[in-house]
């Protein structure tokens, strides 16, 4: 993720060391944790206690959730839009793919799954514009409320329009593109996920650093100011909302290749809040943080599953049964509780997240020029190096007017 690729080629060790010393303390902690998880998984696979298929599945889920957090980051992190229907856009993408490509789809189209991607993009755009028109001109909380409703309505339609969506029965089986490659379906899905995520990541990082991204941050920090400068904030919000929603639908397409089954029960509202936790924890407004967030969700899900199989959990259960309270404790309710408490704790103690956006918002060129002029400590303040001041998006929450 380093931008100094030319420097890296000349002196890889030195560049790495510089990157490490440049990184903030919190960043280093996160990188160490990621390295530890990677090492643990590799060792686990090497000694055979973790199946490689399981690891590949986890990685697909990480890619899927990272796409969701990246999409939400474009909406909430860049533009300050509160979208509580993440799972609905994911479902729109997933259902589009299933309906046009699955052999068991009630529509019986049998198209090539690659056709699903442009269709999912169109469907996501239409729904995003539909919900955006009434709400994006108004205060942030209107979108929050309307999107909560949208999620419910999408689920109701998928559940009740049996003749088109197969209803609660769900749809199973979808051909996986690239599955003719010699290394199995799961790996093909992983490949698709990795390519999709990389493409989306490069795209959002590019637009985030562009003038468009800068104006977005200005609108988020002070909408009146942006309007006074002649920026059409409604239009900008709509663009961010549509881009984010489209990324979410792509995540849904990826999911059906992996899961090979889809039903309305997959559209749990809780999934939306997983994505919120992940993004805030990862670092609102940070593209790297959004990627980390995807891994965090998988960690929460697998962690709670692992936890509920341990002896300590059994002991807790027995203890609670003796006392006579919380006797119905299980993985599902524990997850719900963990997500809820995490949201409260992160907003209170670390609202900027684990990897808040700092240097990643500065053009690499500008940074290099600032470094040449010998002013390493104040990248953002070097006159002429950065055309516009970079607002610290991580602390916007405190800066906004009540």
């Amino acid at each position: 993720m380093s931008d100094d690729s030319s420097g890296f080629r000349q002196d890889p060790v030195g560049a790495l060391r510089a990157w490490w010393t440049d990184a903030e303390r919190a960043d280093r902690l996160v990188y160490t944790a990621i390295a530890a998880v990677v090492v643990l998984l590799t060792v686990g696979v090497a000694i055979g206690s973790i199946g490689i298929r399981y690891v590949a599945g986890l990685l697909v889920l990480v890619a899927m959730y990272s796409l969701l957090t990246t999409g939400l980051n474009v909406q909430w992190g860049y533009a300050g839009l509160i979208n509580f229907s993440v799972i609905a856009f994911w479902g729109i993408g997933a259902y589009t793919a299933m309906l046009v490509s699955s052999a068991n789809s009630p529509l019986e189209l049998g198209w090539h799954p690659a056709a699903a991607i442009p269709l999912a993009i169109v469907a996501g755009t239409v729904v995003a514009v539909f919900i955006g028109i009434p709400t994006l001109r108004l205060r942030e909380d209107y979108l929050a409320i309307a999107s909560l409703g949208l999620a419910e309505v999408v689920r109701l339609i998928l559940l009740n329009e049996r003749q088109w969506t197969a209803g609660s029965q769900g749809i199973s089986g979808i051909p996986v593109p690239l599955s003719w490659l010699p290394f199995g379906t799961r790996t093909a899905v992983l490949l698709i996920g990795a390519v999709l995520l990389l493409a989306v990541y490069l795209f959002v990082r590019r637009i985030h650093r562009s003038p468009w991204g800068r104006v977005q941050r200005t609108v988020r920090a002070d909408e009146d100011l942006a309007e006074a400068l002649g920026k059409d904030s409604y239009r900008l919000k709509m663009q961010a909302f549509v881009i984010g929603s489209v990324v979410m639908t792509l995540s849904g397409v990826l999911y059906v290749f992996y899961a090979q089954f889809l039903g309305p029960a997959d559209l749990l509202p809780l999934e939306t809040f997983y994505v919120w936790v992940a993004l805030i924890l990862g670092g609102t407004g940070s593209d790297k943080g959004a990627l980390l967030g995807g891994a965090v969700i998988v960690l929460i899900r697998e962690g709670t599953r692992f936890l509920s199989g341990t002896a300590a959990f059994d002991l807790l259960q027995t203890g609670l049964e003796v006392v006579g309270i919380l006797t119905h404790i299980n993985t599902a309710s524990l997850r719900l509780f963990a997500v809820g408490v995490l949201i409260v704790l992160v907003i209170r103690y670390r609202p900027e997240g684990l990897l808040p956006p700092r240097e990643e918002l500065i053009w690499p060129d500008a940074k290099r020029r600032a470094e040449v002029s010998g002013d390493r400590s104040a990248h953002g303040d070097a006159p002429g190096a950065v055309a516009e001041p970079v607002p610290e998006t991580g602390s916007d929450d405190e800066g906004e007017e009540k």
Partner: protein
Amino acid sequence: MVAQLIVNGIVYSSIIVLASIGLSLVYSIGNFANFAHGDTMAVGAFVALASAPLVQAIVPGVTIAGFPLWFFGALLVGMAAAAVVAVVTEYVVYRPLDSSAIGLLITSIGVALAYRALLLMQFGPGQQSYPVSRGGRIPWVESALGVSVTARDVVIVFSSIVLVASLHAMLQYTTLGRKMRAMADNAELARVSGIRTGEVIIAMWVIGAALAGAGGVFLGLDTIIRPRMGFELLLLIFAAVILGGIGSVYGAMLGGFAIGMAHELTPAIPFIGTEYNAAVAFLVMIAILLVRPNGILGGDAT
């Protein structure tokens, strides 16, 4: 048939009105959209259920027009519990938080999930109901008007009227009510005028959550009790508050009534099945946002 739907609508509206008032109070005085409001209702409903055996033992087994008196005791316990939970949450979660309205909004989602998780852990995910006999229709109403009204319906509607009337009296004729209205109007000015805003916020939570608790108990009486009940109602309550105009308590009452009616009158609309009554409320909300985003009574003081 439409007359019957209107009766159902009045019963359902009573529940939505009680819930909308609390949400609107928090919106205007606490200044944020409280997504934990629905789950506060569920807390009230479940605590009332849990307290039922105890209350039954204390309150004499008297019935009023075929409806047991102890239920009102359980109702009060549920309301008190919801209020206590909300005040504790205010002290533990919201007050130490130095954040904007949006930070509070997102935090309230966390609070909502935590409430629901605890209810699931304590009571399990299944459906339950109050140990009140179903009772039949009231015969003379059925013969006179041709609609079926049960004792439960009467209890829900009349208790709601009593609660809303007391709230109105409190807001208009007591010092606390004046303070609350002042703070809803302009919190800074209220503080400068010497109003202890912290105390008003606690009063807001007590009143709002107690009414939500009552709404939850009535919803449980009207339908069933389960941990998701409040969260599922949240969209309707928000629709009601937006319809009435965010921050206007009287608007919330009006909006609650309209949304409750729309919800129950859905079967009267051709081509739309009852499975879509939540969707109808959603479309009503979208339409209001397009036409009159400030709501019916938006902009007016509470």
